């Protein structure tokens, strides 16, 4: 299995608070992704990174920011959490563009 660790696994927070989710990989893969999974929508791309300090927006990036200061770590921040951001968040890594993704185990986030 690919070495991907997401933390925390579960998080409950209040509307308006900032939240940071962490993804850590041990595979030295160049590409890292954050997806959210919601019923009826499947997985939707939030942001991705193609190298240290190189990031770009995905399909549903509003309300989220990311940072990648080291190859192995990719952080997702909700600046001011809203109830619509209640979801399961998955981190994924990819060795080269257009290859399969390896996913972490996910973070269940509830915004009350």
């Amino acid at each position, binding site marked *: 299995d690919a070495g991907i660790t997401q933390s925390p696994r579960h998080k409950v927070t209040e509307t308006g608070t900032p939240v940071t989710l962490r993804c850590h990989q041990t595979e030295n893969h160049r590409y890292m992704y954050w997806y959210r999974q919601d019923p*009826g929508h*499947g*997985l939707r791309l939030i942001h991705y990174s193609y190298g240290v300090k190189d990031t770009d927006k995905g399909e549903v990036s509003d309300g989220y920011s990311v940072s990648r200061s080291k190859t192995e770590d990719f952080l997702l921040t909700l600046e001011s959490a809203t109830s619509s951001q209640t979801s399961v968040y998955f981190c994924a890594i990819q060795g080269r563009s*257009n290859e399969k993704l*390896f996913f972490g185990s996910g973070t269940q986030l509830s915004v009350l």
Partner: protein
Amino acid sequence: DQQVKQNSPSLSVQEGRISILNCDYTNSMFDYFLWYKKYPAEGPTFLISISSIKDKNEDGRFTVFLNKSAKHLSLHIVPSQPGDSAVYFCAASVYGDNDMRFGAGTRLTVKP
């Protein structure tokens, strides 16, 4: 803008029979297609893929068929086993584009 669609939210089959999961896409630029399998409380795991230059790819009990003219792909599982019970996601991407698009998923239940 759901470019990848799985119109069947669920499918139930008997153990030993064939399972056929379907996926349609709208973006004719997609040239790489994948199927992922997801168990509860785990991240999706890669199952099988197919490039647009092929119309069939086989891996053990799993076969993916691609019909480019119809913008349709399907996953066949023969014979189906209870351990195949999971949610299956169809995904598609364009070479060089990091935005892999996913369908909403189909929950497969294989009854003993």
